[in-house]
C-alpha cells in the first residue's frame, strides 16, 4: 500500500481550516492521530519537516494524500464534516464534456470539474502530482482502470470533447517532449507511451480529449499536452479530468480531487458529462457527484460485533466525527459515507469505523471464555516422533527452503527423465535457483553436505518437512506430504550404518518394514533398496551414487534414506 511524502507545515495548515487555528503538531500527537487513517509514520526529517507515511487501507484512496489525512483528523476536531457545496451545485451553462460514441469499447467513462481561486504553491503542486500518481498507479491499477489529467483552465474553451481518433489523425506536443507527435508516435517513442501503451493494445482508434477549438488536451491514459496540460506554480485556474473503465471509481477519484482542491481554497465548479447512451449513472452525469453510499444498521449488530453496549447516541456521534452523515432511528442508525469515500460494502465496515473513531483503546480486552482442546495433527505427531528418535540417534536437524532448482532436485541427482524426477515447477520463476518445489529430501541434505566439508566429521543430518509430489489424480495436481530424509557422511560411511539407523527408527515407530533391491539412479546399483511397509513402498535407502556426489562436489561417501512419513502414518 502507498507510502506518501508530506510536509509537516502543509499538514498543520490543512488541519487549521474552518474555525481551527494553525498549531504545531508534535510527532507523538501525529502518531496518535494516524490511527484514524490506518497510517504509520515511517520517517521524519526534522530539517525539512518531511514526513513519510504508509497508508494501509487499499479501499480508502481518499487518505493517500496530505489533504485526506488532514481532513479525517480535522473532522474529529470539528465534530462533524462540513458539507462540500459543489456536490449540489448547478452546472454553469456550457461547462460540459461531450463523449463521442465508440468509447464504450475503449475507455468508456470520464469525469471532470474546474477549480478556481487557489494559487498553486510549490508544495501544493508536489502534493497534487503525488496524489495523481498514487491514485492512478495503485487505485487505478497502473492507469488501466483510472487515470487523471490536470490542466490550465485558462487555455481551455468548453465544451470539451472525449472521442476516438485514428492513431495518426491527431498530434500535439506531449509533456516531456519538444516536438509535435502523433498518437502513434507517442505510443512508440514517449516513455509513458512505452510504459502504458499496452492498455490500448489492439485498438484501431485511440481516445483523445480536445476543447471547443479542437485543441488537444491529452491522450488518456498516456500523456497530457504540454501546451495545456502542464500546471505551474502560480496557476490559479485548473481543469481536472479522470478517465477510466469503472464509472464509480472514475467519479470517486474526481470527488477526491475536488475535495482536496477545495480544502486548499479552490472553488469547484462541476462539469456535465454527456454520454451518447445511458450509463450506470445516467446519460447526463454531473461531476463531482455524491454517490450517496449509505446503509442502515441495527444498533444490536454494532454492539454485538464490538462486544460492548454503546447506545444510538454514542454510535451516531462516533460516526459523525468520522465523516459520516447519520440519522438515528429506534435501535437503528442510517449511516451515509462522505462523497470522497466508496468503501461501504457491509455493516461490518461501519462497525470498524465506530471502533476506529472511538479509538481501539476504548475497548477493554476480554478473554474468550469457551473451552477448547488443543492438539497436533496426526502428521505433525508422526514427524515430531521421528525427529525425537533421530536426535536420539545422534543426528543434527536441518531446515531448508522447499523451493529450489531442477538442477539440484533432479539433474544433479541423475533423475532427469525418470519418474523420481517429476516436480511441481512454477511458470513465473524470478530465477532458476528458485523455480520448483522439492519432491524428496535428499537434495536438501546434500546442499548442506556440499557446503560443509570443513565441519568436523562424521556428519549425521536429517530433515523432516514438506515436499510436493506431482499426482495427476489429485485435485491440485500434486500431493503435499511430509518426508524424513537422513544422511550420514564420513570417510567410511557405509550402507549397514544407515541401515541400522533405519532399523531403530522403524522399531520405535512400531512399523515392520522390509528392503527390496531397487535400481535408483541416485544410488549405487546393488546398494539401494525400497523401504516397503505393508506391501507399500514408502521410501528409499542406499549409498549415494559417486556421480551424484561429484556433481554436488562432495568428497566423502554419503549414505542416506528418505521415508514418507505421511504415507507411513496413514498405514495401519
Amino acid at each position, binding site marked *: 500500500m502507498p507510502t506518501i511524502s508530506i510536509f509537516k507545515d502543509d499538514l498543520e495548515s490543512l488541519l487549521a481550516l474552518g474555525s481551527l487555528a494553525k498549531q504545531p503538531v508534535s510527532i507523538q500527537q501525529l502518531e496518535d492521530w494516524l490511527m484514524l487513517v490506518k497510517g504509520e509514520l515511517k520517517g521524519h526529517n526534522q530539517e525539512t519537516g518531511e514526513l513519510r507515511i504508509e497508508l494501509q487501507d487499499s479501499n480508502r484512496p481518499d487518505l493517500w494524500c496530505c489533504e485526506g489525512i488532514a481532513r479525517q483528523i480535522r473532522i474529529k476536531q470539528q465534530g462533524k464534516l462540513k458539507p462540500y457545496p459543489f456536490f449540489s451545485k448547478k452546472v454553469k451553462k456550457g461547462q460540459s464534456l461531450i463523449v463521442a460514441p465508440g468509447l464504450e469499447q475503449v475507455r468508456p467513462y470520464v469525469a471532470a470539474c474546474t477549480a478556481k481561486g487557489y494559487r498553486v504553491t510549490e508544495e501544493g503542486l508536489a502534493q497534487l502530482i503525488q496524489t495523481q500518481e498514487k491514485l492512478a498507479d495503485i487505485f487505478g491499477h497502473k492507469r488501466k482502470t483510472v487515470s487523471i489529467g490536470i490542466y490550465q483552465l485558462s487555455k481551455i474553451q468548453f465544451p470539451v470533447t472525449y472521442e476516438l481518433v485514428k492513431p495518426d489523425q491527431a498530434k500535439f506536443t506531449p509533456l516531456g517532449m519538444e516536438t509535435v507527435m502523433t498518437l502513434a508516435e507517442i505510443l512508440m517513442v514517449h516513455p509513458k507511451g512505452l510504459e502504458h501503451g499496452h492498455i490500448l493494445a489492439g485498438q484501431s482508434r485511440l481516445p483523445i480529449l480536445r476543447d471547443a477549438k479542437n485543441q488537444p488536451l491529452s491522450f488518456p491514459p498516456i500523456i497530457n499536452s504540454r501546451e495545456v496540460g502542464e500546471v505551474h506554480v502560480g496557476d490559479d485556474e485548473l481543469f481536472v479530468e479522470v478517465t477510466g473503465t469503472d464509472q464509480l471509481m472514475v467519479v470517486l477519484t474526481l470527488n477526491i480531487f475536488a475535495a482536496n482542491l477545495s480544502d486548499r481554497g479552490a472553488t469547484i465548479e462541476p462539469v456535465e458529462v454527456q454520454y451518447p447512451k445511458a450509463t450506470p449513472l445516467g446519460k447526463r452525469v454531473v461531476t463531482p457527484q455524491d454517490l450517496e453510499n449509505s446503509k442502515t444498521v441495527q444498533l444490536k449488530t454494532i454492539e454485538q*460485533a464490538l462486544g460492548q453496549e454503546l447506545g444510538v447516541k454514542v454510535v451516531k456521534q462516533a460516526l459523525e466525527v468520522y465523516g459520516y452523515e447519520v440519522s438515528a432511528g429506534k435501535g437503528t442508525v442510517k449511516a451515509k459515507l462522505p462523497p470522497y469515500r466508496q468503501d461501504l460494502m457491509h455493516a461490518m465496515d461501519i462497525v470498524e469505523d465506530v471502533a476506529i473513531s472511538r479509538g481501539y483503546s476504548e475497548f477493554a480486552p476480554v478473554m474468550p471464555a469457551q473451552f477448547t482442546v488443543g492438539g497436533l495433527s496426526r502428521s505433525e505427531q508422526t514427524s515430531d516422533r521421528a525427529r525425537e528418535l533421530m536426535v*536420539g540417534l545422534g543426528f543434527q536437524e536441518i531446515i531448508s527452503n522447499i523451493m529450489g532448482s531442477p538442477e539440484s532436485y533432479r539433474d544433479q541427482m541423475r533423475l532427469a527423465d525418470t519418474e523420481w524426477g517429476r516436480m511441481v515447477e512454477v511458470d513465473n520463476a524470478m530465477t532458476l535457483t528458485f523455480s520448483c518445489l522439492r519432491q524428496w529430501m535428499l537434495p536438501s541434505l546434500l546442499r548442506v553436505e556440499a557446503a560443509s566439508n570443513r565441519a568436523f566429521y562424521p556428519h549425521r543430518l536429517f530433515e523432516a518437512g514438506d515436499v510436493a509430489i506431482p499426482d495427476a489424480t489429485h485435485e491440485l*495436481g500434486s500431493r503435499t506430504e511430509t518426508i524424513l530424509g537422513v544422511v550420514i557422511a564420513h570417510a567410511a560411511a557405509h550402507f549397514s550404518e544407515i541401515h541400522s539407523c533405519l532399523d531403530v527408527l522403524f522399531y520405535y515407530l512400531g512399523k515392520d518394514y522390509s528392503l527390496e533391491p531397487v535400481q535408483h539412479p541416485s544410488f549405487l546399483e546393488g546398494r539401494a533398496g525400497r523401504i516397503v511397509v505393508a506391501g507399500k513402498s514408502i521410501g528409499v535407502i542406499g549409498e549415494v551414487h559417486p556421480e551424484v556426489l561429484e556433481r554436488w562436489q562432495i568428497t566423502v561417501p554419503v549414505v542416506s534414506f528418505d521415508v514418507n512419513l505421511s504415507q507411513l502414518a496413514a498405514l495401519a
Partner: protein
Amino acid sequence: METSALIDSLHPLEIKVLMAFGSRPAGTVLETEPLAVAAELEPSQLSMAIEWLLAKSLLIVHTETVAPIVSLTKVGEQYVSGASPIERVFSAAREVASTGKRLTIPDLQAQDGLDPSDVSKAVGRLKKEGVLLIVQGGCIESTGRPSPTVEAIRILLQQVSEASRELKSFPEAHRQVIEDYAVKRGNAKEPFRVDDRVTRSFTLSPAGVEAAAYLAQEGVAEEVSQLTPELLKDGSWRNKRFRKYTISLRAPRIGTGKKHPYREFLDTVKTKLVSMGFQEMRGSLVETEFWNMDALFMPQFHPARDVHDVYFVKNPTHAAKIAEPFLSRVMQAHQDGGKTGSTGWKYAFNAERAKRLVLRSQGTAVSARTLAAAPAVPGKYFSIARCFRYDQVDATHATDFFQVEGIVLGEDIHFRTLLGLLNLFAREVAQAKEVKFLPAYFPFTEPSVEMHVRHPRLGWMELGGAGLFRAEVTLPLGVTVPVIAWGLGLDRMAMVALGIHDIRELFTDNLDLIRTTRGIF
C-alpha cells in the same frame, strides 16, 4: 615439587631411564647406545624420554662429541651385491689379456650399467697405479699388476655394509680411498658417505639422583593409562598406577544429535498454542487461487494477486474443479454479496481464474480450508505453514518462509474477545506486558487490528495482525458464528533469538553454524 609428586608426573619411559642410572654407581655417564640397552628401550622411545628428562632438568648432557661416520649410499649398496665400476674395468682388462681381444674405452663405456664418467675415472686411476696401459689405437692393455684401489674398495664395501663406522677407525690408506669415493657436492654417485654424527653422553642431575634414589627405594607400581575389564576382573588394578591426565586441556569436539535452532523456536510456539487450546491444521503447498485468495474475499483485480506477487504452477495450470457449493457462494459474494449482507465487489468473477494453481502465498489459505470443512464451534485452530512470495531474495525477504496463523470460532467472539486473545498471545508468545492495538487493513477482516508489543529485549515491535473474518468470507464457507483470524510475525523474534541478521540464515547450509547456534528462546 615434592619428589613423590615429581615421580607421579613421570612417564613410564622416563622412569625406565632414571632406574637405569639408579642401578649404577653415582656419577655414571652413559652414551646413548649403552643407555638404550640398560633402559631396555627402542631408540625412538629413548630419545623421547631423554628430551622430557632434559626438559625437567633431571638429566644433563655430560659430553657431546662430533665424529665423522662412514656409511654406504644406495649406490654403495648396489656395489656390494655387484661390483664397483673400477673393479669391472680391472676385470675386463684382465680378461682381454688372456683372450687377446682388443678393448677400447668406448667399448667399456658401451657395457651395460657402466657410466661413461665412471669408466674414465676408473681407467685414469688404474693407469696411474700402473695397472693399465693405453697403447696404439686407444687399446687398453693390462700390465698384470694388482690394483690396491680395487682391493681396498672391495674390503671397505664389505666392512661398511655390516655397520657404519667412524672414519678414524680405518687405516690411513683406506681413509684416502673413502675420501676419494665419498659423495661430495657435485658428485652424488659414489658408494660412500661421510657424515658428522653427534654423540652425547648423559648423567643425572642432583634432582635426577634424588628421583632415582627415591625410585630405587620406594619402587614404582606399574603405570597404566586405561582401566580395563581384565584389571577389574583379577583385582590387579590395586598394584597399578593410573597415569594422571592434564584435565585443563580442551575437550575433543564431538557431533551431537539436536533439533535445528529455528525448529526449537517454532516448537516452543507450537507448544504454547496447543497449551492455549489450539488444534493444528495442515494444508497443501500448492493451492488454487480460490482457496488462496477468492475464498478470502480478495477481489480478482486485487494488486496482491498480480503475476509479480504470486508463483503460478506450470503444469497442470488449473485444478479440475472447485468444490460446490463453495465456488458459487464465493462467486456470488464477490459479485453482489449474495446472501452475506454485502454489496460485493461488483465485478464479473472469473470461475476459471479461481482454478488457477499457485504456490500458497499466505497461511490464511489453510484457515479458509478449515472453515469449509465444518470446524468445531467453539474452536481454535493454528497452522505453521510454509508460504511462498514472489520477492527478490535478500536479507529480509526469503522465497519461502513460515507463517504462524489461525482462527478462533465461537458465539462469544467479538472485537473485545479478539483483543483479549491478542493480549494472551503477547503475554505467552512474546512475554510482553505492554500491548498497543492499532487499526489495520486486511482484505478479509473487518475490523482489523495490528498488535504492537513491548518485547523484553527488542522494545516496541509488531507482533501480528488479526481481525474478525468478514461475513463475505465465513458465510459462503458455511460458518455462521463470528471468527477471529490471526497471524503472528515471528521471524524477527526468531532471528534475534538465534542471533542472526539475515533471514536466509534461518535455512542456512552452514553446518558449523547450525551446530554451534544454541537457539535459546
